[in-house]
């Protein structure tokens, strides 16, 4: 790009410097990178997982929103999508997988079961995954349609956009 008027120079772009330079805030840059490449950890536990799979497939194509890289290793994932009924027997396993995900991480509770136990008011089902791990987005429905999951993902992206990522870097106290 060559400036039409050589006497006017943009603050954000200087053709004399080799390569392209964009001036922005660190937060904005970090958030922009994070939100558009969310790698989900598919925690498919029951019927909702089928809708999660549909969302990932060609018809709904979650890759349009940068979240198609489903990782089956929690160490490579950013967002855990809890899709299905969390039984007490599974609950601590879900927690363990969550604990293995590196920060920053987010959680989407997909469907009535993951949000609140759903129709299973019973001895065997955890009454919402938020009793064990922090949830950022709840999606209603039994199961939610893929559009709803995508809407939830977009909500999460908007949330990430507002984060103070630089300030919020976890300060881990150094042990003496």
């Amino acid at each position, binding site marked *: 790009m060559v400036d039409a008027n050589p006497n006017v120079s943009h603050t954000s772009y200087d053709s004399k410097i080799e390569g392209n330079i964009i001036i922005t805030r660190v937060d904005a840059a970090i958030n922009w990178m994070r939100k558009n490449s969310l790698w989900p950890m598919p925690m498919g536990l029951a019927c909702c997982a089928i809708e999660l799979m549909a969302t990932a497939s060609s018809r709904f194509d979650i890759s349009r929103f940068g979240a198609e890289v489903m990782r089956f290793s929690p160490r490579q994932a950013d967002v855990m999508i809890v899709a299905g009924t969390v039984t*007490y*027997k599974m*609950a*601590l396993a879900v927690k363990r997988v969550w604990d293995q995900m590196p920060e920053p991480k987010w959680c989407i509770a997909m469907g009535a079961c993951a949000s609140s*136990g759903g129709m*299973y*008011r*019973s*001895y*065997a*089902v*955890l*009454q919402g995954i938020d*009793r064990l791990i922090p949830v950022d987005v709840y999606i209603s429905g039994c199961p939610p349609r893929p559009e709803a999951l995508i809407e939830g993902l977009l909500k999460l992206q908007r949330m990430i956009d507002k984060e103070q990522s630089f300030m919020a870097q976890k300060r881990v106290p150094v042990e003496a």
Partner: protein
Amino acid sequence: MSVLEDAQAMTSGEVSEFRGETTVVVPLAELKASLKKCRDAQGYEMLLDISSVDYLGEEPRFEMVYELATLDDSKHLRIKAKVAEDEDVPTASDLWKTANWHEREVYDMMGIKFAGHPQMERILMWEGYPYFPLRKDFPLAGKESNMPEVAFSGVAPLEGGPFVTSPGATREHGEPRARGES
């Protein structure tokens, strides 16, 4: 031979028929022999299911239910046996391999033990869970328990539910109503 004749051919046991389904109730002591006879002599080679019923307040408290069928599926026969709370049931897993997991499920949910079973452990709940959740005196909402590092359980909020029907009363009384926490 018809199912009814098969059932009557079994020496002891009370035979009943309801809507084309034949049921034999045998004493617990004869259960194993009856099952074996059904399989070997009468051609009921397939075990479809094993389940159990809790008649809380009655004596004996539990009842085992075995669903048998012939391989060509032409005949079905149900065998029942009453079990008291402190009695063990002889395992059927040496007659039918499939009985192995069915019996573990009965043990897991009802707490009925099977003598001679190769692996008498819980199958659905985790080992160490202190209750038998399908017993009638277990609340539907569940109970609290905690096994550190393994699993925990809590009480589900029922908000006045569940909506249950009551048996045996007038229609008005038997309608589904919220009847407290369990």
